[in-house]
């Protein structure tokens, strides 16, 4: 069978993967640098009998997909920083009501309107902490069109498995970059369908009563079972409660179902880490520059390694600790002021050996930038 090779933007790879994963409903609002995702959906979804909606703003977009998801559809929206900020309240609603959805945030420079057409990775912490109240979240990233495809499918799978919103933290560079994509065969990557209740019509269905394995089977809203959904703390029927015991139980459930499955959701790539005294840790577009440097230095005999993270939340602390255990210095390469560095410092045994190589001027960090910072760290000067 001939392989299906395409030459596409990262944003298009993301859109194609969403359809591959079974996307049926997309609502969005135009914003650079994510609009190619919406444009692709506008064209393709109706052809597949799906629905694309351009809503009046990002708030309406995320609310519409949450509503559609509840009725049994796989759903997605795509945006960038300013729109992602607007979505935060509804994101919390999806967390609280445990409604699966995927939100792609193609990051640009911020704060505020910032740098609409330039790259940044400034929203790592916003993905984690942007909505109010204690909660856990899933956020994935990738550095190539091929990986964007894979991780997008993962995003839909995690959303369904854990009944949670999943954030895809892409960036302007990888979103806009055109490159090779080999589209997997239809059964090439496993996709997770919605877990539906086996409770028959007319029998009392408890939308918020977890099974023994912690999973919550769903019943398509508007279908066989009538139930209530609310953003208030709620009991197993979905009705509001202020009972402290139930409140405690629900918040633990919401946090534990993500944090306890951090291993299951950890996705990463590693290059030459076993013998590297200096180990780079990076993700997204910055990881391309890091890998470029690593491959170049290796040719010259310099032992540099790279751990490329694809799951940013729940942060894989144990994985990072294990992978970094032989390194004498760890250099986190990212395009912010050290949002992942903070987590790496929490993860490793000797946080004083973790350093930052960053760029925050809207330009993609270059291999030379990283090399210069490594020299400084190694006391060699620039």
């Amino acid at each position, binding site marked *: 069978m001939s392989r299906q090779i395409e030459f596409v933007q990262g944003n298009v790879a993301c859109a194609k993967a969403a359809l591959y994963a079974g996307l049926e409903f997309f609502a969005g609002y135009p914003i650079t640098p994510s609009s190619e995702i919406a444009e692709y959906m506008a064209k393709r979804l109706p052809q597949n009998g799906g629905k694309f909606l351009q809503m009046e703003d990002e708030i309406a977009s995320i609310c519409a997909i949450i509503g559609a998801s509840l009725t049994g559809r796989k759903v997605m929206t795509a945006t960038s920083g300013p729109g992602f900020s607007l979505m935060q309240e509804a994101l919390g609603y999806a967390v609280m009501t445990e409604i699966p959805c995927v939100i792609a945030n193609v990051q640009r420079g911020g704060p505020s309107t910032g740098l609409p057409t330039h790259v940044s990775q400034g929203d790592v912490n916003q993905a984690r902490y942007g909505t109010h109240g204690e909660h856990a979240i899933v956020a994935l990233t990738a550095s190539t069109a091929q990986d964007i495809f894979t991780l997008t499918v993962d995003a839909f799978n995690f959303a369904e498995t854990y009944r949670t919103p999943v954030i895809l933290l892409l960036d302007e*560079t990888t979103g806009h970059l055109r490159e090779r994509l080999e589209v997997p065969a239809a059964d090439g990557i496993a996709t997770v369908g919605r877990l539906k209740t086996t409770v028959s019509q007319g029998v009392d269905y408890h939308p918020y009563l977890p099974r023994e394995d912690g999973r919550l089977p769903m019943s398509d809203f508007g279908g066989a079972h009538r139930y209530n959904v609310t953003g208030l703390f709620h009991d197993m029927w979905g009705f509001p409660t202020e009972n402290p015991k139930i409140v405690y139980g629900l918040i633990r459930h919401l946090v534990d179902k993500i944090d306890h499955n951090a291993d299951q959701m950890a996705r990463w790539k590693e290059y030459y880490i076993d013998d590297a005294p200096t180990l780079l840790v990076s993700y997204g577009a910055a990881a391309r520059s890091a890998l470029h440097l690593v491959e170049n230095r290796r040719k010259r005999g310099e032992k540099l390694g790279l751990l490329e993270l694809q799951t940013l939340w729940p942060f894989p602390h144990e994985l990072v600790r294990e992978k970094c255990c032989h390194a004498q210095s760890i250099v986190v390469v990212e395009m912010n002021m050290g949002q992942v560095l903070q987590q790496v410092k929490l993860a490793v045994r000797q946080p004083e050996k973790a350093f930052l190589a960053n760029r925050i001027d809207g330009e993609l960090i270059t291999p030379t930038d990283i090399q210069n910072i490594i020299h400084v760290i190694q006391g060699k000067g620039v």
Partner: protein
Amino acid sequence: MAKTRLVFSGSGGQGVITAGIIIAETAVLHEGLNAVQSQSYGAEARGGATRSDIIISDAPIYFPKIIQPNVLVCLTQMAYSKYVPSLRPGGLLITDSRWVRIEKTVDARRFELPLTRAVTEQIGQSVVLNICMLGAVVRLTEVVSPEAVKEVVKDRVPKAYLELNETAFDVGFDLAKKD
């Protein structure tokens, strides 16, 4: 093969972005090579100089930006002034002789080609300037085969305009005779 870093520059609407996508897509879909293409976006892309960056290589391409192109195409004076200082010594410089006046000698193989004049006089349609330029680039760089480029053009261009584009490509190809 060595890594080829091409920058196509001009002004918005001249089609340098499309030309970049076509040559990169050709490399990936028909030549079994790796290629990445990126471009300037936003306000920058709407006025002044616009550029399309293409890297083609048989090895994986990680860092996707071009700091020093070894092939630079300039279709306007503004693009020429802005980007010519970045051209790698010993590289290839292609300019449109109708719009670009070479201001100082650079260490490069230089081709001042009458691209605009050729499409206006021989085809009568300036809209295919980018494909004409592509013909010249393909001949001078040999980074992809002309037949493969035409395959991609066939897939991307509406049928009614196919012949026009193919002719434009050939005109550019013929202009770039190596002497």
